[in-house]
């Protein structure tokens, strides 16, 4: 069974989450020809660009209204308008996102009003500016991501004629994962609107000439008609209704919502296909059945190694949920499951299946790496799954880390990591199994010696 371990401390020591506007930037990078500006101190935009760029190895252009002390007193309206002017002129975007920061929120900036005035003043009525209040103290980057999606849909989507396409709303997964989901949809013959689609924009192919805003991203015209879609599939089990774009489309426009886990692991991926079948009536093609079969074959074969795995899984709630499920399916017992978010759905959802495992799982929300480390040690975790920050678990506790999620900055290819669908799950599992094997074989001799040879050696006379 599992238990929840509260974090009783005031201090956050080595955080496992980032701030809300950080999460809000990513969705805008997944809309075609879109730009984003943060209303606040310029340091916010700089820090976040730095971190996103380091993960994706891409230029991450994010504007800032560069508020200074004067702005804190008299308001930052003029700064934001100037910022918008410059962005419109230099980038010629088709959509602009405006996110707030601690500063703007604390001084009470009304960005919706400011941007409306701006558009009117400049004669740009109808130009899509999406405002998102994302105070850094509000929630974690996870909520920032989802709330931004909801704001975008709220702003752009209009009542539309019913059509047969399916909305597919994805969480902060890798560009490669998004590409894989698109491949799966195409194999199923499902027409879709995938949102947000940063599969090309945040994993840009080398090409000349350089484009300030990369090609790709969900078309705004498509977002507009999401209200008329046959259904919404949203990989957002852990998302609160108030920041759920799928829920919004359901409530506002009666688009049936299938809220699913990220299709990682057999059961979650089956669910995705079952759902597609329910919506479209289409059957899984033979090639996908083969992929599923190969995953099962791999699971059967690797279990002899996997069942030695005691995993600590950390990061954004949605990914953590899917990884925990995948680990459970493979006997890689999740002993610590943690997120820096306050998310309240995650523990409930985890309990939904963890009770079947006859082990203790510690579920940590609002957690930090110091708490995660302590619990990992206590629970004897021997494999960590999550972002690069987990390297401290390796350095301090000798727990090897399988990198997954965001950010990955001490290895290459985080943006290319494939982990969804049957084939992606197989790849993910092979990474896990081989890390367990590597660790076991590296430590094998010393531990074998400790366990079985020491006494023998001591007792045998040397001759």
């Amino acid at each position: 069974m599992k238990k929840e371990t509260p974090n009783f401390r005031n201090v956050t020591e080595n955080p496992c989450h980032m701030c809300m506007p950080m999460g809000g930037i990513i969705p805008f990078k997944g809309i075609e020809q879109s730009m984003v500006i943060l209303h606040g101190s310029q340091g916010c935009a700089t820090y976040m660009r730095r971190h996103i760029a380091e993960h994706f190895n891409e230029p991450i252009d994010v504007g800032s209204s560069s508020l200074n002390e004067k702005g804190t007193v008299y308001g930052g309206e003029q700064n934001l308008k100037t910022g918008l002017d410059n962005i419109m002129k230099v980038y010629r975007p088709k959509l602009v996102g405006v996110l707030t920061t601690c500063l703007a929120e604390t001084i009470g900036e009304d960005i919706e009003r400011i941007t409306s005035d701006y558009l009117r003043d400049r004669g740009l009525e109808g130009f899509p500016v999406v405002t998102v209040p994302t105070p850094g103290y509000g929630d974690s980057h996870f909520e920032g991501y989802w709330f931004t999606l909801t704001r975008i849909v709220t702003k752009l989507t209009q009542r539309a004629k019913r059509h047969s396409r399916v909305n597919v709303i994805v969480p902060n997964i890798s560009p490669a994962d998004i590409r894989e989901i698109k491949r799966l949809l195409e194999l199923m013959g499902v027409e879709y609107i995938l949102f947000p689609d940063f599969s090309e924009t945040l994993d840009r192919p080398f090409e000349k000439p350089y484009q300030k805003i990369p090609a790709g991203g969900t078309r705004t015209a498509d977002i507009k008609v999401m209200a008329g879609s046959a259904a919404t599939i949203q990989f957002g089990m852990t998302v609160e209704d108030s920041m759920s774009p799928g829920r919004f489309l359901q409530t506002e426009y009666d688009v049936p919502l299938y809220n699913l886990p990220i299709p990682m692991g057999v059961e979650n991926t089956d669910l995705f296909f079952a759902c597609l079948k329910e919506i479209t009536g289409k059957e899984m093609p033979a090639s996908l059945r083969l992929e599923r079969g190969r995953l099962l074959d791999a699971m059967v074969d690797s279990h002899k190694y996997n069942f030695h795995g005691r995993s600590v899984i950390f990061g954004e709630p949605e990914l953590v949920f899917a990884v925990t499920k995948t680990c459970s399916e493979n006997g890689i017992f999740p002993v610590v499951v943690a997120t820096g978010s306050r998310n309240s759905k995650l523990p409930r959802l985890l309990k939904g299946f963890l009770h079947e495992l006859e082990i203790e799982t510690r579920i940590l929300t609002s957690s930090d790496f110091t708490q995660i480390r302590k619990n990992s040690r206590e629970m004897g975790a021997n494999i960590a799954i999550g972002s690069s920050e987990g390297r401290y678990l390796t350095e301090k506790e000798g727990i090897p880390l399988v990198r997954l999620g965001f950010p990955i900055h001490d290895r290459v290819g985080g943006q290319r990591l494939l982990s969804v669908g049957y084939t992606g799950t197989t790849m993910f599992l092979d990474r896990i199994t081989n890390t367990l094997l590597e660790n076991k074989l590296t430590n094998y001799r010393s531990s074998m010696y400790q366990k079985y040879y020491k006494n023998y050696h001591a007792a045998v006379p040397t001759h």
Partner: protein
Amino acid sequence: MSVTEKDLERILEAYPAKVKRNRKKHILIKDSSQEPQEIEANTRTIPGIITNRGCAYAGCKGVVLGPLKDIVHITHGPVGCGYYSWLTRRNKAKTPPDGKNYLAYCVTTDMQEKDIVFGGEKKLAQVIDEVVEIFKPNAITISATCPVGLIGDDIQAVAKAAQEKHGIPVMGFNCEGYRGVSQSAGHHIANNGLLEWVVGKGEMTAAPAKYSINILGEYNIGGDSWEIHRILEEIGYHVIAVASGDGSYEDLKNAHVADLNLVQCHRSINYIAEMLEIKYGTPWLKVNFIGVEATCQSLRDMAQYFGDEELIKKTEEVIAKELARIEPILEQYRKICKGKTAFCFVGGSRGHHYQKLFEDLGIETVLAGYEFAHRDDYEGRQVIPHIKVDADSKNIPELHVEPDPKFFKLRISPEKAEELKKKIPLSYYAGMNVDMKDGHVIIDDMNHFETEEFIRILKPDIFASGIKDKYIPHKMGIPSKQLHNYDYSGPYAGFNGAVKFAQDVTAMFTNPAWNFIAPPWKGKPLLEGQLQK
């Protein structure tokens, strides 16, 4: 290639008129016949320009305070700022025998909405209590982020109370992100604090050894400081303290006894250097350990300062030995680097320093600039009295110091000082501009758009800057070197650093991936001859 005024005009045309006028003042085409050429710097960033500048918090906690290893640095604010400044500067530090090295930790009060509404002082005080209990650090700093100042949390009061409660120094820094116009404000705030609360608090009354020095403005990125130490100590110097790479509260509190302060990064640390001179009588010398020639020159300047024949001789011996060792290696790399051109847009000193290293390799810097420098970093310290302090910078408190009654000691006579100043940059920095060649571009606070445009015109062979602008040149087919975190390489300082840099840069030129940037489906069918049919 070079940039003409017409080119410049064309580039700036993309901006709204007001922005164009503003940006034009930040860009010079070097023309020695026009000297002195004035540049605008350290003024407000234009909103919506994709600047590379950070904020006061970044400069204070991220740059200056962060590397002090035996101090726990608490970020008082919402979670982001602490997270984003967590080890990202690659300041290296060796853990001392007492184990007090907290660089790997990110500690924050992680303020929540309720803290914003009801105030965060109580939580901060509790966090300090916990930090003392968990870490037992030699000191604690508190760095405030944006909302703290706005909601009126009095971190100075909290610090004071905590210091009394726990008996260790607890220092509050009001480095909210909106202060000043860039991280430069943060450097200033941090330095004021260190001078007021740390330096002079040690027990030492006199230098413990001959040639005792401090190194200021050296952050041990990628191990730079270790290489500098290696050289200095081989010559016979005794380093009291470093501000702040691999530095510590324990060392820094005795910085007042040194006989000379070296200033590596003029921008971030000149405040301290000046104040140390006033307060303790220690002169400062501008040095540059980036580049072989620059390192040799700095070592010779130091020896001149002390004026000891033995030291001068030993300095030359070490230089000769090191050069004999590294020159043949560098010569190999020079064969590839020679004749190439660079952009060098970094920080507040590196934009100048690294030109020397590029020069060692035969690479000419055709565009250079700083993110957050002041006019003196471009034009030389002589312009300081003429700099018009703007409203933003005025808000940064100025620390006024006087000679310390207990520790002040004149290291050299005013006459000797004047004599030395004719030969070595004692208490002086001439700025970057003087080293730039005519026709080359000097640019302050360059943004992504300008980066792209200048690359198109000047087609440099290498672009040196940071991670945020790294991938623009990459995508344009130009190798790009991060001089903030060294792309996880380094050290680049001193003699060994120069070799490492030469190796890294040469590798970038010879990266075979560039061979493929003209895709085969365009142009002539070059592959057919290779098909074995």
